[in-house]
């Protein structure tokens, strides 16, 4: 059961990673990159590393997503 859930999580990381690379809509791509790292954080909890999960969740799906969003906004404002 636990192993199955872990495989499911890994599959979700893969899917959201591929989506992050291939989506044309930049906001959706950023959101999907954040989702990938959120899945990774849950994975870490299952593998018994809650401290790594904390860092991954706050930096991977919080900080870096916001930085990407700011960058997207800046560049799209410059293009207009």
């Amino acid at each position: 059961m636990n192993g199955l859930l872990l495989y499911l999580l890994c599959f979700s990381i893969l899917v959201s990673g591929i989506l992050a690379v291939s989506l044309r809509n930049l906001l959706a791509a950023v959101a999907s990159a954040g989702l990938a790292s959120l899945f990774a954080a849950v994975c870490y909890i299952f593998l018994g590393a809650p401290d790594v999960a904390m860092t991954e969740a706050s930096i991977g799906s919080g900080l870096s997503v916001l930085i990407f969003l700011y960058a997207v906004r800046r560049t799209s404002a410059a293009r207009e």
Partner: protein
Amino acid sequence: MIELVGGVLILLGAAFHFSAGLGMLRMPDVYTRMQAATKASTLGNTLVLAGIAFFHPGWSLKLIVIVYFVFMTNPVSSHALARAAHAIRNSMGRTPVVDALSDAPQDRQWVMWRILVAIVVASFGLIFATVAISHVEQQSLRPLAESYVRLVPEALRAPNVVTGILLTYRAFDTLGEVAVLFMVAAGVGLVLTSSERGNDDDPGPGRRAVMQSSEVVRTGAQVLGPLTAIFAAYIIMNGHLSAGGGFQGGAVIASGIVLMLLASPAYQLDLEFLSVAESAAGVLFVVSGIAGLLFAGGFLDNRILPLGDFGAFFSAGAIPLLSVLLGVKVGCELSVILDRFRP
């Protein structure tokens, strides 16, 4: 004999490196210089590494991996540089015979590029798959890990072995990591502030309209913000007892700041206060390290404070203190980085 072959290969590689340097000096414009430097130095690197492989056959696998990365990164980076030079209309030395990028018909290149990417991804997948398949879970700890697991609760009275290692046995590495983070923050500030600050003082009417977040986000931030702060404080203060510590707590602080900035985008962080707090935390971290040098076993030895009882809140020497300093430092640095990226 084998060493002779290796020596000749290294010498040949050095000759190519020399020609790369010569090309950098003698070629007329950025494209030809780039070509000379990249081609010759890629071949030179490969030859030197091949020569080393003759001297140390045991290193062959690592050397092959290095060659692979050189092959992957060197042409790609110089290609990107050349493209950038072309994009900003860097002039060519003479009238070019052909300028492939002038009105690039890119369809065929696009297909080639996709095939190349697919091959690279597949080879990485193969490497990871072999590693994952051959992975066997260890039944017992390695000697180093075992001694740490035994030593940290015993000598430091800290139940959380990870924090004990991070802030005692590897505290110097932690200091280095924080220094790296500091340099990142400084670099981001250097790159992003100089030209952008000018138009921040005068937000146009269009910008003001963007600077307003939805009711849901604001209310959610009001509820979650204080909870995040308390959680961060808990993680930092209990770093020696349960999972967490300074780094994690600092990251949680910064994600609380993320929430705040999302809720009220016009809010100005007090950068001066943040940098003063960050520097003070760094200085105190080093000072406590020097205190360890004077009063205990060595630099950053945290037995300068009483060790206390195993599992108590005030225990494990100076680890909680160092945790707090680390949390303040990391939180301030990440917040400053975040602020630099704001539009």
